[in-house]
């Protein structure tokens, strides 16, 4: 058997899966942000006539996935798997959205790294010849995340300066074995690094070592330099985490400059009062399925390293004094 691997952690696709279509739905705040025009649908408010925020998030994800499918021109019977995930307990947003789609479902939990994880797994399913087309859908919602992870939304409190704002948004992409579009050529599955950060308001700092570790291993596995990429983009490190990841990489002998950015830094501007930037699975999924894919299709970017970053804690583990385990999954997309 020919093994499609390189080095420690990287898979290299023989027949690179194609990103056939994508669709994004976001909340009003994301729509007002600097990437507002790159999203396919902007909701007027975070509830959009649904009875609860949970229902709204699930609807949002459902619309993103249906949007990606209808845009591709494929029928449901031609899609072999649905890979979906979100931030809520028992993946309710993904499961309830999948209830409406009726596709064979693999639920994924990678916290905020779920889009990158989904792309990697979808690539393996397709290149492993287990599927022809695979749909990936990922969502998060500011208000559902707040009430699960933090405080009731109307409770008066002061957010820390290093805290990030959970993005309300859902992004979906359809991958296939053949067709036109950007291709996924390799993926590096990350491992958990926990450097002892316990502050849930500072998740960028908790995830930065894992992201740096994945980038380091990715470059080593494929014998590449950061300059081989037009853009290296992490999921939701935010301003603090991005700075730390760059510092760690520099100390480890990898110098990255302006080509290393972060979806959480890109999605809001400073005037939106979100402190360190955006976070949540929705953050990297809508920035990837919106802005980054557009630029890959337009030829602005030739090769992008998309590194989803996840903080794999729960409110319970934090109350019990555990530190926050971080993870990073990297995917190479070529235009």
């Amino acid at each position: 058997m020919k093994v499609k691997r390189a080095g420690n952690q990287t898979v290299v696709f023989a027949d690179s899966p194609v990103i056939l279509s994508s669709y994004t739905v976001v909340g009003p705040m994301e729509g007002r942000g600097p990437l507002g025009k790159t999203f396919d649908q902007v909701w007027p408010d975070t509830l959009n006539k649904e009875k609860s925020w949970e229902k709204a998030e699930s609807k949002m994800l459902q619309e993103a996935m249906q949007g990606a499918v209808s845009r591709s021109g494929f029928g449901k019977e031609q899609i072999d798997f649905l890979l979906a995930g979100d931030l809520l307990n028992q993946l309710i947003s993904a499961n309830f959205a999948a209830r409406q789609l009726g596709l064979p479902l693999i639920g994924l939990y990678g916290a905020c790294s779920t889009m990158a994880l989904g792309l990697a797994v979808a690539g393996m399913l397709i290149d492993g010849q287990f599927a022809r087309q695979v749909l990936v859908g990922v969502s998060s919602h500011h208000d559902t995340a707040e009430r699960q992870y933090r405080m009731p939304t109307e409770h008066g409190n002061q957010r820390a300066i290093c805290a990030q704002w959970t993005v309300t948004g859902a992004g979906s992409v359809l991958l296939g074995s053949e067709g036109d579009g950007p291709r996924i050529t390799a993926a590096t599955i990350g491992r958990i690094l926990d450097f002892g950060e316990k502050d849930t308001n500072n998740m960028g700092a908790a995830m930065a070592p894992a992201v740096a570790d994945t980038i380091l291993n990715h470059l080593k596995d494929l014998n590449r330099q950061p300059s081989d990429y037009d853009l290296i983009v992490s999921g939701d490190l935010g301003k603090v985490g991005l700075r730390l990841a760059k510092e760690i990489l520099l100390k480890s002998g990898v110098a990255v400059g302006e080509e290393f950015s972060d979806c959480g830094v890109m999605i809001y501007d400073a005037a939106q009062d979100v402190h360190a930037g955006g976070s949540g699975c929705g953050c990297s999924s809508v920035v990837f399925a919106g802005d980054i894919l557009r630029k890959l299709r337009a030829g602005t970017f030739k090769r992008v390293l998309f590194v989803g970053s996840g903080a794999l804690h729960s409110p319970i583990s934090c109350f019990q004094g555990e530190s926050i385990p971080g993870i990073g999954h990297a995917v190479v997309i070529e235009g």
Partner: protein
Amino acid sequence: MGNQNLRPPTIAVTPEEYSQMSMKATPKPTMVKNMIWAFGVGGLICAFAQIMINVFRHMGLSAKEASSTATAVVIFLGALFTGLGVYDEIAKRAGAGAIVPVSGFANSIVAPALEFKREGFVTGMGARLFTVAGPVLVFGIATSIAAGCVYYFLHR
């Protein structure tokens, strides 16, 4: 912290070094600005309550009645502004200035009531009404019982 025996290559930073780096990279809270806001808003709430006490006194209530009535009004306004979605916006800037007065206590009970009503009247609102205020009540009541006991034995 879990097992960190990672297969090389790994990042050339130890957790000890990282906590130093992280501390340096993490921005500090804007203390002076926060304190000015807290002083201003907290002061305004208390001044407003004091004016009401004076007005109620003027209207003929006793000192105790006037302060109880003013407290009730501040609680009502805290709850009202929470319901209108304004109180969290005030507290975002004013911090302790909006949390410490009794209107902040009203906010800490009304916010979960609003939040969890979708999970049902009993299993949602009823069960989770005191998620924020609960610890304050538990330790507040426990402390007052202890203080009462001390007072009783000292003054017997």
